């Protein structure tokens, strides 16, 4: 099934891409989707998205599914469905 992935911030600059459609299998989790993208885009992308342990999302990066932060869903185990929009958002402190 197809889901849409949107890129903001450093990841967008790195990939030079705003968004794309990605083909994944049914009930793929957010974690599995991000792993797949890491395999496609390599180490630079992986380091932007994952902490060193490879299991948790990097501090300061928010992942949303259809606008809702995954922390309020099932975290990285959140299951995706057809047409879902997954967005990678960097959050900065302050800036005044």
């Amino acid at each position, binding site marked *: 099934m197809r889901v849409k992935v*949107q890129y*903001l*911030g*450093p990841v*967008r*600059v790195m990939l030079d891409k705003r968004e794309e459609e990605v083909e994944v299998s049914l009930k793929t989790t957010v974690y599995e989707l991000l792993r797949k993208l890491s395999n496609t885009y390599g180490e630079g992308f992986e*380091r932007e998205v994952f902490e060193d342990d490879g299991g948790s999302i*990097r*501090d*300061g990066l*928010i992942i*949303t599914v259809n*606008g*809702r*932060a*995954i*922390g*309020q*869903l099932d975290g990285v185990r959140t299951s995706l469905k057809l047409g879902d929009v997954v*967005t990678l*958002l*960097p*959050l*900065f*402190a*302050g*800036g*005044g």
Partner: protein
Amino acid sequence: MNAYTGKILYVDLTSGRSKTGIFNEDFARAYIGGTGFGIKTLIDNQEPGIDPFDPQNPLIYAVGAASGTMVPCASSKFGVFAKSPASNLLGEAYSTGQWGAELRQAGYDIVVIKGKSPKPAYLWIDDESVQRMDASHLWGKTTWDTEETIRNDLGDQLIRVSAIGPAGEKLVRTACLLNDHFRAAGRTGLGAVAGSKNLKAVAVRGTHDVKVAQPEELRELCKDLYERCKGPATSKYRGLGTPANVLTLNAQGALPTRNYQSATFEGAETVSGEYLNEHFVTKIEGCTACPCRCEHIAEVREGPFKGAIARVEYEPTMAFGPYCGVDRLDAVIKAIEYCNLYGVDAISTGIVVGFGMECYERELITKEDTGGLELEFGNGEAMVEMVKKIALRKDVGDVLAEGVKRASEKIGRGSEHFAMHIKGVEVTGYELRGLKTCALGYAVSRRGADHQRHGSYGWDLGGKVDRFKADKGRGKLVMGDEDVYCIFDSMILCKFTRGIWDFDLIAKVYSLVTGIPMTGAELLKAGERMSNLARLYNVREGLTRKGDTLPPRIMKDPIPSGVAKGSYVNQEDLDILLDGYYEARGWTKEGVPKKEKLKELGLEAYANIAGKEES
């Protein structure tokens, strides 16, 4: 003492005379520096209830514990404090650049300026020599011209200058104090306090040694700290910089747009951090002893605003971009440049212009009032011109210069509903209707609407809590955030490096620098002490629970569209949030620190303030 100079400079602008006082290790350990020094000095040196423009309102500068050392991103930060003409409560603002280190090198950690000079003056601190200098030829000059002229007059290009522009001279309530071209002690109108004293600038040159207790150990530790400053914890600040928040917040329906009429902006892409870096950023510079370097300097190279140059962060971008419905960065950069030159806070002034735009569109002010400007949302040229009019108090700029609170009181006709301020200080860049933990942080922030005293949007946007619901547990989160930020604001450490520190590490650095033993727990206690002392000050100056509130639009109008559609913070939400916060803090239901809390923190001396309300 090591690092600390132990000296306080007291200046009387009326007579032009100054004297020195001292502080000891107990004071240093209890209040650390920056925030702690500033609030403590203010509460002890200002008569309760005075008018902020009274000559006896002390204008206070305070450096951090690590000022003038190689501790990363800590060397040059300083705080400015006074009773605020915006809120009539605690005024406090922080800046960085090069000025702070220079003051410590000159031999002072705190400067207390009272009185009013009979003629325009600037303060010239040249190591031990302190003089009130004639500034008649500087009055009316921009902040940049002021710095250049002072350096040329005194013949030293390394003099650091903290100056007001024409706005401070004219007592504009969003006036700031600017230093080193691109840095400002911006918020709460402290530039107007300086203006009310006929004080154009504070110029400082310091050539003394700054000795730390254990220099070799500190240097060794800094090797690791500097590495971390160049690592993943800070990479986004060194890369795109904070303006990348524009698209993040837009995607989350958390971007204040058109004076808070909505939470998403259709023009966000062209005022985004991504767009800024691609088209406008020409150089990234650093403050003193900063391995990160995050100052994104942007230049406009063509069009009607050609030549404009400014350091661009998220907040001013929000304030002059989405907040005013403007989708072009050249106008945003020009507006920020005007703010720097004329000496007004970019955030507050952008909010004021946005308010003016809504007034104009509702025909509460006319084209005659605006001096011919079509002050509509999206009109970048009018926005830029309005900044100037506010700074110079021209046309309706004279009313708007009072800040949205007072301007809406004057304009009336329902404009109070959309005057976006808390305690008289304009809102900043997080749409609070859909961020309820953050909304609490803003409602209780000691200097009025503010994200920098807590950063509690992290819980909401990070998905760690349900941002659309209010519960009593948020109080503890906000309290924790506030006290931690007090530590940062007293050392003074740049919050962009937050990811490299833990409290024990900060305590270790504190001890290596000052020679004073310190633990992470003691630092947290000190942070709590500062938060409570600030509250006592505000209570003394008249703050009650009623003042811990949110603007009417946030409490009555739901977000109209987007991911956060329908959300807002009603009175019931607010009461739950406040109750939880006051409880966590050990305060009464009216928000007054209880006697037990004062005792716990060594603040019994202020019990008479707390004694006013008991429950």
